[in-house]
């Protein structure tokens, strides 16, 4: 599809499909599928941040979990450092698990409330044989806590003794404990207050500079994406509808859904308020996605062809767009939904 970058990417996902069966009746026959992730392609080059954005139910979290092999994948390749993870046995997969870590949205739910911070962080080290002795691992935990700007003396405390932002730092320290090369951040800053969110975003940026980490940043918050991502992939109903460099996506979105999504973001600029809501209606269910283009039920530029036929991803310069109206040089609909209103 897109050449060049494919070979150098740390993580390269091709045609990933994760569907969940809907089972019914005495014999638990499969009567349908929740089409959470359908045929997505995604590259994460080493040391960069790629954002996967979309609204709830678009499949972004399932995509992240599938890449970590936490979900059963139906089809596709997940190539990490040149090796297809889907072809590996669980034992062969282990060394790769160490290199890919995850940080979740709610740190309280992802930390064991009965385990001291030291043990939570050291657990992964033990399973991957990092540090020969307990004392060595404790030493390393102290370093990690310092690195995420927490007091190493606090390692003997329990999660409830920390604030939300501090707990997220602990989760980051746990992810770092096993020297990963890729961290999947699933809404990792979404639950935090804005003053704390800025601290965590800065910490993630520092760690990326120091350690050369790659981030797959899964979020619905486009303000965060614009600030921190190198590349963006926009998901709608299980598919990536547009992907490309962050600056290009934000300055000239091509897919009507990307345009609608960006126009819907409330403006924090006191000089500008947004105009009419860009799209009406709700997202259809992923268990019965509409035929043809999945966005056609809400698209302001829908044509007869969109209702019948599913558009395939098309490469345009550095971008990939899944829309019939996208053509070189011209947007699907320039300026659609960009209406503004002066206060």
């Amino acid at each position, binding site marked *: 599809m897109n050449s060049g970058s494919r070979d150098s990417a740390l993580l390269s996902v091709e045609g990933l499909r994760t569907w969940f069966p809907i089972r019914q009746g005495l014999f638990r026959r499969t009567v349908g599928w929740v089409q959470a992730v359908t045929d997505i392609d995604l590259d994460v080059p080493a040391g960069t941040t790629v954002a996967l954005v979309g609204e709830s139910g678009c499949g972004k979290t399932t995509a992240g979990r599938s890449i970590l092999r936490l979900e059963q994948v139906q089809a596709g390749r997940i190539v990490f450092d040149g090796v297809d993870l889907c072809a590996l046995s669980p034992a062969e997969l282990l060394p790769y698990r160490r290199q890919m870590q995850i940080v979740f949205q709610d740190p309280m739910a992802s930390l064991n409330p009965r385990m001291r911070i030291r043990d939570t962080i050291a657990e992964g080290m033990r399973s991957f044989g990092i540090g020969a002795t307990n004392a060595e691992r404790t030493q390393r935990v102290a370093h990690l806590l310092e690195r995420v700007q927490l007091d190493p003396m606090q390692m003997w405390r329990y999660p409830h003794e920390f604030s939300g932002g501090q707990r997220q730092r602990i989760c980051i320290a746990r992810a770092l404990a096993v020297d990963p090369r890729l961290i999947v951040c699933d809404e990792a800053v979404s639950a935090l207050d804005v003053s704390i969110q800025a601290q965590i975003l800065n910490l993630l940026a520092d760690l990326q500079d120091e350690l050369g980490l790659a981030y797959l940043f899964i979020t619905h918050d486009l303000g965060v994406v614009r600030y921190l991502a190198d590349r963006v992939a926009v998901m709608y109903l299980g598919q990536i509808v547009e992907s490309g460099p962050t600056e290009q996506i934000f300055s000239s979105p091509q897919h009507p859904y990307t345009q609608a999504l960006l126009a819907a973001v409330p403006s*924090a600029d006191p000089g500008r*308020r947004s105009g009419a809501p860009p799209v009406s209606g709700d997202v259809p269910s992923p268990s019965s996605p509409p035929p043809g283009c999945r966005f056609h039920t809400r698209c302001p530029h829908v044509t007869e062809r969109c209702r019948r036929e599913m558009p395939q991803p098309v490469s345009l310069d550095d971008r990939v767009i899944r829309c019939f109206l996208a053509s070189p040089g011209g947007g699907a609909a320039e300026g659609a939904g960009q209406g503004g209103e002066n206060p």
Partner: protein
Amino acid sequence: MLEVAGLTTSFPGESGEAARIPVVDGSDLEIAGGEVLALVGESGCGKSMTALSIMRLVPKPGRIVSGSVRLEGRDLLEFSVSAMRQVRGGEISMIFQEPMTSLNPVTRVGDQVVEAIRLHEPVSRSAALERCLELFVQVGIPDPQARLRAFPHELSGGLKQRVMIAMALSTRPSILIADEPTTALDVTIQAQIIRLLRDLQRELGMSILLITHDLAIVNEMADRVAVMYAGRIVESGSRLDVLARPRHPYTQGLLRSMPALAPPDERLPEIPGVVPPPGQWPDGCRFATRCSIQVEECRRCVPEMVAVADGHLAGCHLVETGQEPGGEA
């Protein structure tokens, strides 16, 4: 229209009644008729508790200990329980963040709205049902006739919030309190609900007290803004005053730390430290522990709210003495 003065709400501390911990500490707010006032702050600052205090719905063992809440001159804190019940959902309505938890899951949504109407007005069921249908049309529920018979779980998050808004409007309130009305919604749905609230507010000429943590929502909806930190209002003024010319260091810090406004290549200016929880609020200025420009006085005495421009107030010692590093954030 609504005037809150010196409102203080507290909860018993660990050592009981003797050491009550305030969660709202001497708040003053004023909402004029037909105005949208946004009360903005981070979690735990007391903004939701302020709203609940206005409605006299503070959960036990919390209690309003002092202050007044005047609705068109009458102090709601002196109302009897039954008179207050008529105000709630009558003159003042409220919508919440999570519409699913505010709707009864086993009752059809039409019946719930009808019940709300008939609690406040002696009308027949069929008249109430007709009114409900009108409201559903007004709040933009597609296929309203069929939706009357829907159960909450059959509706999407955006539709449930529209039902909640219909219910809140059913008694033609003069004030709508909206506590994080779009926080649980997706961004495209959020845009629809913001637009709906703005349109309804203009059409019906009602006032809205908008409680939110999101400064972008404030910018989209508010006429005036009050910024709350650790139980106190620290800055208030028109939307443009507070967002474009903030004077309190906390407001300035909040605006600077927003990723949406920051240049991508620069480090986000962060506010150091964490919001102190109730009970651990410092003496003097409560923001002093995190403030980059504090002086000794900040740790000792509580700053008064002073007018920095017409209708624009800030509670900061450095603003008082004209030493603070100026407006533009």
